[in-house]
């Protein structure tokens, strides 16, 4: 029984925190906020140098071959620093999809490039129904002699503008979980066009992707035709864990910023941190966050090591952290008083990120119902 981090893991976290303090301070986040793509290829390259983009990639394909728990610890730090960019989608989701379902040719083509940061992937799955269940996957891929003809629209695709490849959930036949297939579609494919969807959280750019008779070769199929849901279900668990980890880091950072602010801000000739109401608010925030950390660790560990409990654990973490992150940033803004409500202060980066994380990949109600089903209530 050892529910703790190894020395290597603690070191990973420390070095990530140092790196991000240096390479992605809030001034950097602020600068990217108004950049057209909200993405810094340079930061991505530097993270690749750290091994982060290849953290999950097996050593054989140029990565570090580390675990989901290691990734969660890294993502916690990235959440702290509210790092903008497609990291989760490229270095977690598309990477895992290739590892779990890719042919050796696909792995050979993409994994080294994703690991090195040379290529960026994203995951196109939502449609206008906004459903993350199998019934939501209706984008038609018509079978042709050489592959598929894809027509329709995917929505809210993260960082489509900078992605080289879109892992796209399509329907090749049937309904429900049967007949879903995953295609690796090059963004430059003719007929594929993207449109930016302007949202408040500018660290998470999303796009509408239109497929207009897009011709995709057979070699783009990831895994078996019609059996894409199995891989996708695994990706949704990974996404839940990843966002929970990001939320944990963000919540912890928001609490620290709020507490630090109250220690220096004075009113009535004393630091406002000495006001009982603010102290108790901070205590409530800490009481939310501390036990939640254990859920993130467990969910990440279960993803790798306890497959039978992985989905439930992912939902536990996502449900709780979604709630905790949003509530924490709301409180943190209030602890800052008026300044926390301004664009000039950094607080709003976390506030907006919390809301994005809350709704992406299943909101609180979605995951609670899923927990109920998995528990067999």
């Amino acid at each position, binding site marked *: 029984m050892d529910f703790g981090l190894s020395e290597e893991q603690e070191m990973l976290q420390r070095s990530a925190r140092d790196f991000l303090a240096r390479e992605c301070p809030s001034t950097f986040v602020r600068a990217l906020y108004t950049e057209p793509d909200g993405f810094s290829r340079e930061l991505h390259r530097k993270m690749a140098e750290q091994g982060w983009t290849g953290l999950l990639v097996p050593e054989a394909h140029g990565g570090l071959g580390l675990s989901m728990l290691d990734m969660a610890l890294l993502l916690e730090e990235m959440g702290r620093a509210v790092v903008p960019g497609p990291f989760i989608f490229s270095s977690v989701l598309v990477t895992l999809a290739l590892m779990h379902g890719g042919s050796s040719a696909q792995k050979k083509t993409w994994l080294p490039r994703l690991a090195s940061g040379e290529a960026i992937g994203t995951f196109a799955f939502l449609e206008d129904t906004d459903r993350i269940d199998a019934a939501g996957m209706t984008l038609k891929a018509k079978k042709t002699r050489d592959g598929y003809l894809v027509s329709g629209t995917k929505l809210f695709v993260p960082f489509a503008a900078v992605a080289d490849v879109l892992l796209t959930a399509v329907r090749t036949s049937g309904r429900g979980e049967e007949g879903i297939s995953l295609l690796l579609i090059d963004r430059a494919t003719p007929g594929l066009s993207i449109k930016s969807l302007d949202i408040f959280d500018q660290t998470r750019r999303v796009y509408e992707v239109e497929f207009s008779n897009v011709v995709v070769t057979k070699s783009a199929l990831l895994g078996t035709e019609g059996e894409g849901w199995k891989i996708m279900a695994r990706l949704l668990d990974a996404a839940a864990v990843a966002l929970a980890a990001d939320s944990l880091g963000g919540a912890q950072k928001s609490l620290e910023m709020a507490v630090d602010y109250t220690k220096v801000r004075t*009113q009535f000739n004393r630091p406002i941190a000495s006001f009982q109401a603010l102290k108790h608010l901070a205590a409530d925030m800490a009481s939310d966050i501390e036990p939640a950390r254990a859920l993130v660790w467990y969910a990440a560990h279960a993803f790798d090591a306890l497959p039978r409990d992985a989905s439930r654990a992912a939902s536990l973490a996502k449900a709780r952290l979604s709630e905790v992150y949003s509530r924490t940033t709301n409180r943190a803004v209030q602890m800052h008083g*008026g300044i926390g409500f301004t664009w000039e202060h950094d607080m709003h980066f976390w506030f907006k990120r919390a809301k994005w994380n809350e*709704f992406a990949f299943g909101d609180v109600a979605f995951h609670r119902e899923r927990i109920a089903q998995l528990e067999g209530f």
Partner: protein
Amino acid sequence: MDLTYSKEDETFRKEVRAWLKKNLPKKDKAISDLMPHDPERVKRSKDWQHKLFDAGYVAMNWPKEYGGQDADVMRQTIVNEELTLARAPGLVGASGLTMLGPTLIQCGTEEQKRRYLPKVLTADEIWCQGYSEPGSGSDLASLTTRAELVGDEFVVNGQKVWTSNAQFSDWMFCLVRTDPDAPKHRGISYILIDMRTPGITVRPLVQMTGDAGFNEVFFDNARVPRANLVGELHQGWMVANATLFHERNMLGSTTRTQLMMQNLIRLARSHQRYGKPAAEDPLMRQKLSDLLTRVEAMKYHSYRQLTDVMHGRSPGIGAMVNKLVGTELNHDICALALEIMNSYAPLKKGAVRVIDNGTWAYEFMFTLGLVIGGGTSQIQKNIISERGLGMPKSG
């Protein structure tokens, strides 16, 4: 108890409604009246207030001699309700109407009343409030903006913050420190500052929504005639408190909240979650009902206060909770809208695929600002517990 309106009031309401139907500028229709300002909009807003005033629908409860009608509170309430229901834009001269006006009527000289009040009514002069400072938020009385009396002028130095609309205001009613040696509440004066005075710089303070609404205002040896003093020298705290108290105890205006609730229900009926309208989801139904219950409570709570005021009774603690309950309720309504919309929630005004033109996310953030602005929840709770429940100051 009688929840029907008198025939006269019903007739009046119909008149107002008809007038609005005919006169309300179509372009300004919006769910929200809290959208960012731009110069062209300011111009239109001033025209709109002027037009409303000419129709007799502004500051109706003011004394006749200062441009009002000595009307009872019901009349103004009806007008306000109809304005909200018609989704009319907010009055650009609101600070002048609700804060400066009552203060001048109570504490101003006859000359000041005659000079300033008429243009408050017509929005020919727009006013902003100069109270908060970077170093004094909840502890307002610790303000340090200095006004030294040199001859017949105050020489003002310092900084104000959170000044709504300062960028297009003509005047500021302002609290300044005139006696730095006196105890903090006794060295403050209430003065009126022409915003075109040399030495004044306005710097917009962008909100997390991305819009500029608040400002910082800097004073560098700005000279203000002594005649612009309201009330006695060094007695500004008392002068201001009359209107601060007024702000904090404003009759809860719940019409807007009711409108938001209606919009929320409409959204829940139309927006699908997992193949059926959100409003058919048992959990959402519970949450909608909870919010509706709280909205209805505030509606009848405001009727109760209106009745009290009409009968010359103080609504007491009932009025003290308005702001705390109301702003949190508005925020919660927006939060549920976001939950219903999920991935669509953070889309901004004008974005492809946006729902309700991005109002919900905008208002979600803006209402958080309202919880903070004009006295945080924390301060509201101090007021309720101290003035309402007689609990001692925290010392």
